[in-house]
């Protein structure tokens, strides 16, 4: 079944063709350089760029896979969770195509897409499993009971982990997006240089909170000249605190459910130290850990196509009245 996936929930305009578990094309038009000049995503600018890029991106997804519109068997789109002005562009394009091509349409949840990225990358991945999905927009622990069956176990109470990286990187003046900048700097720093808090790591709750950690770093260095701040040590210590919290909560979640595997997905799953720490800890505990292929970690449409294919196989197509919903619980379907 050849599915066209469309993703426009934040600042990436993406389209992809997926045939069962084969990713035939995965086109992403990133606005990262544009938003870097603003130090973050500007919703109004993002939605404008989506309208301009969407047609080219869909065409490129077909052309580079050597497929024609008439080959498409179904259209999947991220319709829930994200910036409303951005989501509406993907949903408008998806429903128009589904109508014109007379193929089924399915609206999926953006987070469900991220959950499918490691599944698409490793079809042998066991179910059930625990999924930690972590990016600039969200930090969520999900028990994946089966395909398209979820139980949210933990969520961020304030900043997403990637957002905390961005804010600290911005505060330290080291660039946007913050995750890669901090990851690079931390290579030269000591993880134990500063004793930073591990927010909520001791609590029974599997929720996350990173704003206190961020405030702690800001208070330490507010008003200091940049060249007097030991940037690599700050980066390494800050990153370690976040990684510690993410790993320990994910392990707790897996233990609570008796799961044998954990997947780590979303943009922050590219973080070198996070991957290393998960591999070490899971190795010790006899848990399997899975990461998406590099091109499926940040927002992309192949993961949306994979989620959509699973929904269509369950007979869960959407109507042409499909709407874009910026905040929707993951558990809700359609």
């Amino acid at each position: 079944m050849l599915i066209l996936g469309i993703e426009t929930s934040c600042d990436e305009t993406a389209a992809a063709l997926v045939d069962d578990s084969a990713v035939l094309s995965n086109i992403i038009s990133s606005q990262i350089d544009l938003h870097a000049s603003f130090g973050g995503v500007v919703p109004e600018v993002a939605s404008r760029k989506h309208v301009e890029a969407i047609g080219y991106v869909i065409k490129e997804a077909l052309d580079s896979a050597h497929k024609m519109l008439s080959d498409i068997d179904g259209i999947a789109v991220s319709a829930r969770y994200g910036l409303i002005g951005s989501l509406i562009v993907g949903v408008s394009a998806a429903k128009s195509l589904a109508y014109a091509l007379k193929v089924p349409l399915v609206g999926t949840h953006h987070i469900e897409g991220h959950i499918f990225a490691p599944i698409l990358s490793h079809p042998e991945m066991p179910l059930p499993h625990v999924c930690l999905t972590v990016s600039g927009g969200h930090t969520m622990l999900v028990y994946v009971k089966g395909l398209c069956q979820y139980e949210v176990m933990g969520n961020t109470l304030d900043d997403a982990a990637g957002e905390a990286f961005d804010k600290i990187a911005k505060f330290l003046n080291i660039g946007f997006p913050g995750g890669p900048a901090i990851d690079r700097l931390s290579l030269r720093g000591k993880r134990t240089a500063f004793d930073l808090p591990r927010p909520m790591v001791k609590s029974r709750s599997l929720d996350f909170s990173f704003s206190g950690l961020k405030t702690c770093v800001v208070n330490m260095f507010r008003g200091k000249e940049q060249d007097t701040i030991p940037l690599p040590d700050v980066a390494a210590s800050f990153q370690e605190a976040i990684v510690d919290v993410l790993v320990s909560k994910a392990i707790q979640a897996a233990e609570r459910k008796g799961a044998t595997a954990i997947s780590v997905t979303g943009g922050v799953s590219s973080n070198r130290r996070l991957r290393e720490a998960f591999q070490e800890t899971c190795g010790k505990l006899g848990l399997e850990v899975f990461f998406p292929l590099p091109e499926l970690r940040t927002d992309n449409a192949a993961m949306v196509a994979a989620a959509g294919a699973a929904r269509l196989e369950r007979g869960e197509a959407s109507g042409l009245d499909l709407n874009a919903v910026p905040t929707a619980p993951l558990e809700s379907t359609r």
Partner: protein
Amino acid sequence: MRILAFDTAAPTNTVGLVDDDRLLADYAWEARDNSLQRIVLNIDQVLKRGGVALEDIEGLAVGIGPGSWTGAKVGVTVAKTLAYAVNKPVCGVTSLEALAYQCRTASVQICPLVDAGKENVYGAFYRPRGKSLVRKGDFYVGDIKGLVAAVKEPTLFLGKPAHLYRRTLARELGPLASYGSPSDSPSGCVFAWIALPRFRKGDSDDALALAPLYLKESLAQALLLKRQQEDSGKPSQ
């Protein structure tokens, strides 16, 4: 020539289907925030009532604003995707020209107005020429006083802001100003008929590049400035 047209940038969303000068079917609904939910279904209804399959239309026309920013994005994205999917030409039509078109037989210049928020208006000046309209000068965005200052001849004001600011217009312009009907919201077919002469000449817009009409380009720049000011509190390099 069979043209499917729609506009979701105005408060009243419209779909129209014409064959040359003949109206085949049309539909209008008061859109609050349901443009995205209704547009494709309503296009389908109008095509069915007009007895025309999507594949058999010969061109698409779409409202590109100014108006509701969200609405314009929905309409333009639907139009470009449909045009790409059925491989037909597409023409973008501004809401201002669509408003003016209904009074194209007027003997004076026409100034359609659209609310731009924050007590500002979008506007433009059109002169009737034969059966069509020619825009004089650039689009205007700003307060009503700035617009009034540009008026030196008898002018027919159209659109909701023409009624909202009627006292100002009357005070500043006196007998130079005349007014259209307050319910002068254009139907979907108007967008088709404005595009028709372009299609007949073999002219159309690039479907993939089609974008809403941006008249407030400075917003992103303004945001950049604001952010730079916010950032002045962080460590210096």
